[in-house]
């Protein structure tokens, strides 16, 4: 998903020897992906930046522990990053995401088809906003599982490997996350029913 165009393993070998340029190349290659994942897990820019820095410092200090035979560098770094995010979040209440981000998120959907009808576009925007807000209210463990499963696109075995739980537990966390989301959205639907707005296509069809 990242780090295309340069030999990661060669850079890692040189970084192990303490070459600062190699460390910089690795950092440049993985920084954006690491930041985005941390941001999704923490919903805070400053925290995400701090955690990413911590994760890279830890990774560079412990490069000897990275075994290329066991997986890609990003897989290893992701485990460190998610663990750091958990530590950061522990005992800290998550702040809400700014409206600017919400607007950007609604204005630039990654997979949705461009809507030509303004009414449909508005509905889609509202739906996306509601899903986004509901995602902020899902429990931390379930959100982590949803992010790893649907944003990172990991298989359940990989999701399970990050917090070190069983595959079945990972499945349960994702299912719980989806169930929580559905209930939250249903509650929002009930609240907006007075306005006569249909939010979810599944209910319409």
């Amino acid at each position, binding site marked *: 998903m990242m780090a295309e165009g340069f030999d990661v393993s060669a850079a890692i070998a040189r970084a192990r020897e303490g070459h*600062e340029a190699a*460390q*910089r190349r690795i*950092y*440049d290659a993985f*920084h*954006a992906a690491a*930041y*985005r*994942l941390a*941001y*999704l897990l923490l919903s805070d*820019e400053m925290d*995400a*930046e701090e955690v990413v*820095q911590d994760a*890279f*410092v830890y990774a*560079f*200090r412990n490069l000897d522990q990275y075994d290329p035979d066991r997986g890609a560098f990003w897989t290893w770094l992701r485990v460190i990053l998610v663990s750091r995010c958990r530590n950061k979040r522990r005992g800290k209440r998550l702040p809400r*995401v700014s409206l600017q*981000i919400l607007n*950007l*998120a*609604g204005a*630039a*959907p*990654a*997979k*949705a088809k461009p809507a030509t009808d303004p009414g449909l576009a508005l509905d889609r925007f509202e*739906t*996306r906003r509601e*899903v*986004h807000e509901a*995602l902020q209210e899902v429990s931390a463990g379930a959100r982590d599982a*949803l*992010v790893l*499963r*649907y*944003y990172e696109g990991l298989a*359940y075995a990989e999701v399970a490997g990050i917090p070190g739980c069983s595959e079945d537990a990972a*499945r*349960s966390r*994702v*299912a*719980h996350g*989806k*169930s929580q*989301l*559905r209930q939250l*959205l249903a509650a929002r639907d009930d609240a907006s029913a007075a306005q006569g707005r249909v939010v*979810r*296509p*599944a*209910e319409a*069809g």
Partner: protein
Amino acid sequence: MNGKHPGELQLARLSDEAAVWNAADHLGWCARCRRILADFQWLEGEVTASLEAEATAAPVPRADCGAVSSRLGRSAGHLSRNRLAFAATAALLVCVMIAAPSLLGRRVRAGSLGTVSASGVPTPVVAASTDSRAGDRVPRIRVSADPGAMVTLSFVPPPTPPDADA
């Protein structure tokens, strides 16, 4: 035909991985469960799109490895300082361990010349005299004992006052 509705969590898992629960029979006739399943399938797409949009819109800061490098450098410097301090302490300890026995040994030998060892059974004092000569500032007490004369002290009754009648 399976008449029992599956739980919501079962449907949530089913929407993601069909192998988990074989519900084809039930879903064939149960519109309610089909609707919930459709909800979850729709939700998966929305969650993916929402997370991707959020990640894309996230204000990624400029990749600056300087902070990481400086932290790594600081930690390396800190580590080398710690190692240096440890080595210095160890060297000092070794020096002390080598030097201490020779210094202490000299003192012990010097002190042992003037010491008197006291041993044996106490002997009864047979004579004591003070000797204050003209030249001595401090009178000396001489105690001499006869090691052969081990005298057992007999019981001496305490003096009683004289009888008033006598």
